[in-house]
């Protein structure tokens, strides 16, 4: 596995004083093109882990290498660039802005890459088409169903063709059917080569993914990988 997208080595993250250890000496490696579930009960430290993998937060100690870049040595501008070009985020609460159309929401996913507006919109159309929302370009969040909103959020996260897609409880606010279709969409994106890490507390959801990393009390307790089909 020479081609790791995520490489964590003895990563520790403490919060507050006295320190509470949210991530406790986690070492893991995710290869390009993998589809991984990080599963654990709430408070197990999986969100803290996602923040570190997504370079939104820095570990207290340990090494983090994301897409070949040693995160610990990078400054804010370099980390921001990494997020702009290489990492896509999908959140449980969608994070769509009221009054902004699906097209503009997705186009905003490229705003920090300095792409001209016309080009952003062109790529947004392509990205929305990929998630099956070509007929919803001008719809605003309140005109969309929960599943459609999450698809818009996924389209925004993938409009820059990131190497790594991080999803935090992407189906947490959705009913079962919408959740299933979102999951299906993630599978499709995975087959086109995007590495995907999904954080969830839902064991049944995790079981639908080829690799499951189980976290408890900030430690990896199980790393369960199915043989490639």
């Amino acid at each position, binding site marked *: 596995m020479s081609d790791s997208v995520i490489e964590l080595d003895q990563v520790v993250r403490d919060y507050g004083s006295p320190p509470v250890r949210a991530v406790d000496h986690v070492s893991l490696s995710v290869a390009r093109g993998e589809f991984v579930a990080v599963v654990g009960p709430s408070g197990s430290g999986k969100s803290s882990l996602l923040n570190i993998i997504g370079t*939104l937060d820095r570990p207290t100690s340990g090494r983090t290498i994301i897409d070949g870049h040693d995160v610990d040595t990078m400054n804010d501008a370099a980390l*921001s660039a990494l997020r*702009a070009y290489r990492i896509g985020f999908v959140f449980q*609460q969608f*994070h769509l802005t009221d009054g902004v159309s699906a097209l503009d929401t997705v186009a905003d996913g490229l705003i*920090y*890459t300095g792409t001209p507006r016309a080009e952003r919109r062109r790529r947004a159309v392509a990205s929305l088409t990929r998630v099956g929302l070509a007929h919803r370009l001008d719809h605003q969040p309140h005109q969309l169903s929960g599943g459609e909103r999450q698809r818009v959020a996924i389209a925004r996260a993938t409009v820059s063709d990131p190497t790594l897609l991080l999803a935090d409880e992407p189906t947490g606010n959705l009913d079962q059917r919408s959740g299933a279709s979102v999951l299906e969409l993630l599978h499709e994106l995975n087959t086109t080569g995007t590495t995907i890490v999904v954080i969830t507390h839902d064991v049944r959801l995790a079981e639908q993914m080829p690799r499951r990393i189980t976290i408890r009390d900030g430690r990896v307790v199980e790393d369960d990988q199915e043989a490639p089909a």
Partner: protein
Amino acid sequence: MSRGNQTEIRQSRLLRSDVYRLGASGLKSRPTRVVLSALGIAIGIAAMIAVVGISTSSRAKLDAELASLGTNLLTVQPGTSITGQDTTLPVESTGKVGLIRGVSTAGAVATLPDVKVYRSRLIDADKSGGIVVQAADPHLLGLLDGTLRQGAWLTKATANYPTVVLGGIAADRLGIVSPGSQIWLGDTQFTVIGILDALPLAPDLDTSAFIGEAFATARFDWDGKPTIIFERSADAEVETVRTLLPRTVNPENPENVRVSRPSDALAAKNAADLAFTGLLVGLGSVALLVGGIGVANTMVISVLERRREIGLRRALGATQGHIRTQFLAEALLLSALGGLAGTVIGFGVIAMFAGTNGWPISVPPVVFAGGIGATMLIGAVAGLYPAIRASKTPPTAALNG
């Protein structure tokens, strides 16, 4: 593990056009708050521009007036002696003033304190209306740049007869509207031959009735002592003439002679207006300061409310600088809106004020430039702290909601 298997990542970039768009969209989502906080700035700017504009317009009016009246007119009046007694100007003073090198014209009026003016003989002798009878030089009207509302000024010929020219206010008080009317000066009937417009350089004379010197001497025993001598000289000679006047008029007691320049009095009145303007500008800047604090307050609240948006933007690749720029742009835009509205309101107020007073509208462009500049400065200062605070929001805010 392979290091550097990826090409160098380009920098996060935010296009300038997107900075404006982000700033505008941030404001558009909170219209009421934007209007209210921009209003503070607008009022401050409007007040300052209006105050400055009104005073410059009134000064423009005065300058035009002074330019047409000239600043080379000096008046000579009797002062008080060292012992505190009222003095008089010597007989023949006017002639002597006219001989000073540089003086082009000199003329005088002499108050006849015992003569009262009445519309008819039936009027109570005490009701003289405060009109003062002056024996006037034929040169007087030209010296004061006076104009006639009706009729004619005194000439060498009419000065020998019971003819009178009325100051504007005097005519109004007597109810005289046209020459040819008869009035009574003391117990002599006079014919009104002219009515003057207001005399801006000698407003005191507006309540006077002017008669010829010759007739004043013949009928009212005028002693020939002038009360006020007016003289004009070339502009360059004004100061020289000014120093020569007291000694020329009264060589014995030059200290009893008071020389003044009427245009100075007008300018002094304007200076007093300016002091008032300073006060109002002070008040305007306080309003502006309060407006700036309003903008800062709005922005701080906005930053607190938008932690999730900031987190999302950081996740999308915004650097701290981009977040700072966005919020600064928003603050600048907010105060620019206020400044623009304030400028329009301020100009409207000036136009209204100047219109009702018949002044020319004169606002130096630098006032508008200054207004806009002040707004941008306030926006920058008021927006800096919230913007820095926004940029310090941890990127994890998006996930922690």
